[in-house]
């Protein structure tokens, strides 16, 4: 799949933002006044910034409000609805905490839950697609959720907790790759299955429908990512999980270690998210005789 920068930024930043907001809404860390304002401002900047970035890849962003209407069937619509609900409910908690010095724990818990549901909906935009077998597996939401929990805990200055979530994230990410590598074959990922001509023999593309590129190939037959997949996997695991987890567990906690851990984690997050898109195979490429093992 084409790794569009707007979508990578959207999923990465909004995931981080909602993770931070979920911890803050649960009263972690226990802050108030200006400190609380700065924490919540960061959470909102990341979550809202990510959501705005997602509109950059739309053909007609002026109609984006219509995307809230089809929550009955569409995960993309649900994502929008839950994001707005999470931001609103958490906003009530934040306003009461910052301006009235009042803690509303029930509101906070609802806000935290809505934030996590919003991230789950984001993951299901991709996880639901049968056409992208690598994404269509239970570990897709798991990876998104644990990225959110690890990044959120890290930004909320819960360093030991962040290290724990990073270790779980690493496991979830490895499982996602192991399962993902087998998914295309499990879903009948051959040109013979796609064309229904397998009963006649082995099929190969003799002539493409068009001499140049087209929307389908640009969007769904991206192949650069797979060439460097193993290197990017190493970078993801090292930077998003292993290095920051080791740093947080075995050094004295402080602003410096936290800052380094955040930078490392962000590199891993963006590498992993880029790879998530770039290495995913879409079955339509089978008609173009791509994805041959």
């Amino acid at each position, binding site marked *: *799949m084409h790794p569009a920068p707007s979508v990578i930024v959207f999923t990465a930043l909004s995931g981080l933002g909602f993770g931070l907001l979920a911890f803050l809404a649960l009263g972690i860390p226990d802050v108030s006044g200006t400190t609380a304002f700065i924490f919540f401002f960061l959470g909102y900047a990341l979550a809202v910034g990510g959501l705005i970035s997602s509109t950059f*890849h*739309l*053909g*007609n*962003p002026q*109609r*984006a409000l*219509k*995307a*809230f*209407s*089809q929550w*009955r*069937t*569409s*995960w*993309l*619509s649900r994502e*929008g609805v839950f994001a707005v609900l999470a931001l609103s409910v958490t906003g009530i908690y934040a306003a009461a905490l910052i301006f009235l010095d009042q803690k509303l724990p029930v509101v906070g818990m609802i806000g935290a839950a809505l934030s996590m549901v919003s991230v789950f909906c984001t993951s299901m*935009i991709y996880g*639901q*697609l*049968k*056409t*992208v077998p690598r994404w269509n597996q239970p570990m897709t939401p798991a990876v998104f959720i644990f990225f959110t929990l690890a990044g959120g805990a890290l930004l909320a200055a819960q360093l030991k907790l962040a290290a724990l979530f990073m270790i779980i994230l690493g496991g979830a990410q490895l499982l996602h790759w192991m399962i993902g590598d087998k998914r295309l074959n499990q*879903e*009948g990922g051959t*040109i013979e*299955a*796609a*064309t*229904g*001509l397998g*009963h*006649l*023999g*082995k*099929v*190969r*593309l*003799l*002539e*493409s*429908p*068009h001499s*140049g*590129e*087209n*929307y*389908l190939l640009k*969007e*769904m037959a991206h192949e650069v990512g797979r060439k460097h997949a193993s290197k990017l996997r190493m970078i993801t695991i090292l930077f998003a999980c292993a290095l920051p987890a080791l740093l947080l567990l075995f050094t004295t906690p402080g602003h410096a270690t936290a800052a380094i851990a955040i930078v490392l984690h962000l590199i891993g997050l963006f590498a992993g998210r880029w790879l998530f898109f770039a290495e995913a195979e*879409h*079955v*339509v490429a089978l*008609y*173009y005789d791509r994805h041959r093992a």
Partner: protein
Amino acid sequence: MTTLPQTTQKKLGLAIDLDICVGCHACVINCKEWNTSNYGAPLSDQDAYGANPVGTFLNRIHTYEVKAENKPAQTVHFPKSCLHCEDAPCVTVCPTGASYKRVEDGIVLVNESDCIGCGLCAWACPYGARELDAKEGVMKKCTLCVDRIYNENLPEEDREPACVRTCPANARHFGDFADPDSNVSVMSRERGAVPLFDEQGTKPVNRYLPPRPKADIQTDGDIDILAPFLDTTPSPQKGLLGWLDKALEAI
């Protein structure tokens, strides 16, 4: 509304005969012509006369070579357009309700004034039937020429999709798959047509009629299959020429 209808009164669609299609791309051109000059946003091209031309098409023809072991390869031209699936994943993923499946005839359409151009429906389609128009930023797909098939301003013989009307080989047929006695239902049954890429669970309405089995020509190794028709060894001559032939052989 992106909730799919439980059933549709008609199941309009195409039966495409892979045995007959000659790969001339006339349907591609007529589709582009009709759908550019009629309903909805035109199908734009970018850099049409430049080094890297791209454009929006609703119908594309792939050409495959199929080869069974110890048999000559055969060519299959494979037209591909929207299959108007009963379980259309492109409809349910749409966040705005722009994509919908009609209850009356099962045609899957895009309401372009509601489309935000997010492209998720194109990702959800296993057949590559949807293309985002680069100029208009809205999703384009086969409408089954909904503006032809019910159009009383057209002569009756023209009230079928442009691709069907133009096919010079008669490889494309239009009809109602809900009616078991319709032309398309009968030919699909007789030719053993199966749903395309059934593993994806989309329940497509369109059917592909598989290539008919070729006459089984045994080659027994490396013998030229045309050998019987090529008189490579001259038949024995009689008279003076026959004597000359023998005499020359003997030298």
